[in-house]
């Protein structure tokens, strides 16, 4: 079945205040931002007779703003606009890279960061990066504002901790220490427009003497939600990146993820490729200049 346009009750507030009001009065409505997730369901005829709250006209939550301690990306900022932003490119290059692999240009021009996060797909490509940058999700409703650590935002597949009639307002990315070696890697069936089999992001700080000061490593598509490799990160801290230590970190990777077999890949392949990515990231760290 197709979407039947006449069956939709459509709300299109022009400001954040009006949107919160409308959402408060209609908590059963579906929020529409760029529509690149929602409209797929609509086209399949799954959303007939629903209320839709189109937030795409709200100016206040679109665009990137520089803060003292980082940048603030409005929920409605499209992936294409994030990539073009000078502050993002300079301070958070992994975000730029992640946004550049979300679908093709058509999807990047329309799809928003807020929509990507709220959709809570296990394969959201921006998630590992936001996890290692330790982003903060800012939420807003008629009742007021609150903030959640990025890792605390997700509850499960397609499930978030958003309360009824609450919107994502923005995502705050705090500056991290300079001199990190960094990694973003998406593994899909084609170079573009493919849902990830695994998607990885890493930041690594190594001291003058070669010991690891800090590792942050996150994986998507490897569990119901994005995962930080808590065990491996803890293990490698303070160690030199010798072969045995790297191998042990790769072995520990398994403890923090739980990938599945599905149409895109198998559990085994996902584990193997993720370990390979972690291994090469840690091994090469000795030889590469830190940017």
């Amino acid at each position, binding site marked *: 079945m197709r*979407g039947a*346009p*006449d069956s*939709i009750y*459509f709300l*299109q507030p022009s400001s954040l205040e009006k949107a919160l009001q409308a959402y408060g009065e209609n908590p059963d409505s579906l929020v*529409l931002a760029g*529509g*690149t997730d929602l*409209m*797929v369901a*609509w*086209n*399949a005829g799954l959303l007939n007779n629903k209320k*839709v709250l*189109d937030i*795409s006209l709200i100016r206040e939550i679109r665009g990137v703003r520089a803060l003292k301690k980082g940048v603030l990306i409005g929920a409605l900022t499209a992936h*294409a606009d994030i990539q073009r932003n000078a502050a993002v490119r300079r301070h958070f290059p992994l975000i730029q890279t992640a946004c550049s692999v979300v*679908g*093709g*240009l*058509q*999807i990047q*021009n*329309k799809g928003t960061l807020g929509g990507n996060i709220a959709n809570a797909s296990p394969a959201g490509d921006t998630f590992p990066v936001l996890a290692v940058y330790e982003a903060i999700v800012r939420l807003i409703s008629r009742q007021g504002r609150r903030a959640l650590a990025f890792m605390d935002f997700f509850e499960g597949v397609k499930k978030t901790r958003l309360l009824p009639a609450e919107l994502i307002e923005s995502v705050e990315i705090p500056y991290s220490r300079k001199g990190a070696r960094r990694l973003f890697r998406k593994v899909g069936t084609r*170079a*573009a*427009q493919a849902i990830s089999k695994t998607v990885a992001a890493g930041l690594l700080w190594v001291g003058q003497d070669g010991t690891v000061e800090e590792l942050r490593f996150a994986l998507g598509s490897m569990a119901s939600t994005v995962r930080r490799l808590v065990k491996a990160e803890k293990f490698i801290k303070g160690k030199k990146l010798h072969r045995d230590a790297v191998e042990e970190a790769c072995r520990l990777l398994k403890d923090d993820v739980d990938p599945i077999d599905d149409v895109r890949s198998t559990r085994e392949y996902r584990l193997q490729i993720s370990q390979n990515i972690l291994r090469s990231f840690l091994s090469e760290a000795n030889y590469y200049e830190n940017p």
Partner: protein
Amino acid sequence: MRIKLTINKKKRVYEGAPFKRLIDVLRENYELTGTKEGCGEGECGACTVLVDGDPVNSCLIPVAQMNGRRIETVESLGTPKSLHRLQESFLREGGAQCGICTPGMLMSAWAWISRGGSARPSEIRRALAGNLCRCTGYQHIVNSVIKIIKERKRESRTK
């Protein structure tokens, strides 16, 4: 709902359901049937049109989001009698076979070319990554685009 939009340089006022998809409005209300629907899921790019110059999938846009926007479809390029040079290039280079992907491919390519995109095959392929083609194997399409970019460069040098 009343929505004012510009389609291929013509000002239009749409009156009707806000949740009608842009592709259906183009094809049904304005008889611009050049824009094709392939998948209806955002995957294939056959429905690509330009909104304020940016390529987007018209199958994923409710017309209510298009108030005040400038839309360009494949009909804005050329007509059968007088083809656009990009369309001629597709013909010459074999960039079109069955043709279902072609309107969307042309629009993505035109967005790239008209903004001064480079002739590097890897970058062209990235610009066209949201457009699937089951016939040509892409190489002929990329060649069609490279030809035009190089021609335009030559012209601007001699000007």
